[in-house]
């Protein structure tokens, strides 16, 4: 894929490095000239030492043919604006791309999604999710949000007291539009169908419309909260 990373701080730098190692074509836009130079010395000529929140540098970075733009600066406002500028500039050329924003203040996560960013990654929420996963025996974990499609990917771990334990999927009150692509049972992975009976400790991966989360939670975990 052709990926533009905006912001060469710790996150942007390591991301760029990992994406390059993964064989992707990457351009990093970093406004601090010194930092840009340091990264270019190490990773090669993949760095544009300019501001990514100015349209012309996004164009220079190839926004009109990029597959993904990742706004990874340490501030939420430029991350939003970079994603929106990328979207607008691409649209002018009838090109579509996906935008991903790093969210620094968790409060801003729903705002950025509402304002059209395809996917958001909140470091705080990720760490909170991991803590929830560590502390709670039967968690519901947000894995990913696909804003444009209005769906999210979640993992639910079925507890012994869960109303879903011991029941086939067809017996559960699952709202329309929800899909369960995978159930992980111990070391085994199962492609479930309506007849698949859920057991305690099963981890079920769900693709669900964002507004249906409480109902899916209720059906699988017994609590909507």
């Amino acid at each position, binding site marked *: 894929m052709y990926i533009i990373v905006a912001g060469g701080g710790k996150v942007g730098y390591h991301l760029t490095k990992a994406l390059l190692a993964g064989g992707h074509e990457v351009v990093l836009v970093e406004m601090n000239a010194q930092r840009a130079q340091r990264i270019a010395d190490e990773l090669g000529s993949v760095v544009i030492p300019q501001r990514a*929140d*100015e*349209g*012309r540098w996004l164009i220079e970075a190839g926004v009109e043919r990029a597959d993904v733009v990742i706004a990874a600066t340490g*501030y*939420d*406002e*430029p991350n*939003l*604006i970079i994603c*929106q*500028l990328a979207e*607008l*500039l691409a649209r002018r050329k009838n090109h579509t791309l996906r935008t991903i924003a790093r969210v620094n203040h968790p*409060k*801003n996560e729903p*705002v950025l999604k*509402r*304002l059209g960013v395809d996917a958001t990654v909140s470091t705080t929420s990720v760490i909170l999710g991991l803590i929830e996963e560590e502390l709670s025996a039967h968690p519901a974990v947000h894995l990913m949000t696909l804003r444009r499609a209005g769906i999210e990917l979640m993992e639910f771990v079925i507890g012994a007291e869960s109303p879903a334990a011991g029941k086939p999927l067809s017996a559960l009150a699952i709202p329309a539009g929800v899909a369960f692509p995978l159930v992980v049972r111990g070391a085994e992975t199962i492609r479930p169908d309506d007849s698949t009976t859920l057991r305690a400790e099963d981890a079920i991966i769900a693709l669900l419309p964002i507004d249906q989360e409480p109902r899916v939670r209720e059906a699988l975990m017994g609590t909507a909260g």
Partner: protein
Amino acid sequence: MAARPRPAEHRAKMKVVIIGSGRVGASLANRLSKEGHDVGIVDVSADSFERYLDADYTGRTVLGDGIDEDVLREAGIEGADAFVAAVHGDNHNLMAAQMAKVVFGVKRVVARCNDPVRMELFEELGLATICPSLLGARALYGALMDETLHQRDIAGAIERLLVER
């Protein structure tokens, strides 16, 4: 009888939230407050309220971040008729303006945006933006090309500028 523009005091009273209490934001707040509008102004520095708001400013002042929903609520954004984003950072203004429009449903929203390219793009999104750098350039151009202005002596020209401001 020819229709004349109605004086400001006769316009409908609005509830307005302004973010950024610098020279621009505070001047606007002072003016709207004098005209009797219900004004709430937000800034991260209490000092800027002291420095730029008039003694007879009657609106609310709220200390905090202009993109924080709770701060905006405290400033009165719920049910506000208008919102003005006038801090120094373009990104901050553009984000706050969109929050006012999309999250809080404010009808009249104006954002200050210094970068003409960003301004043009955000106007595509339907956002009203004011570009001080373009306005400044236009005003300077006007002054430069105004023949009558340059036929006057310096003292006269300065006086005129002061009166017109």
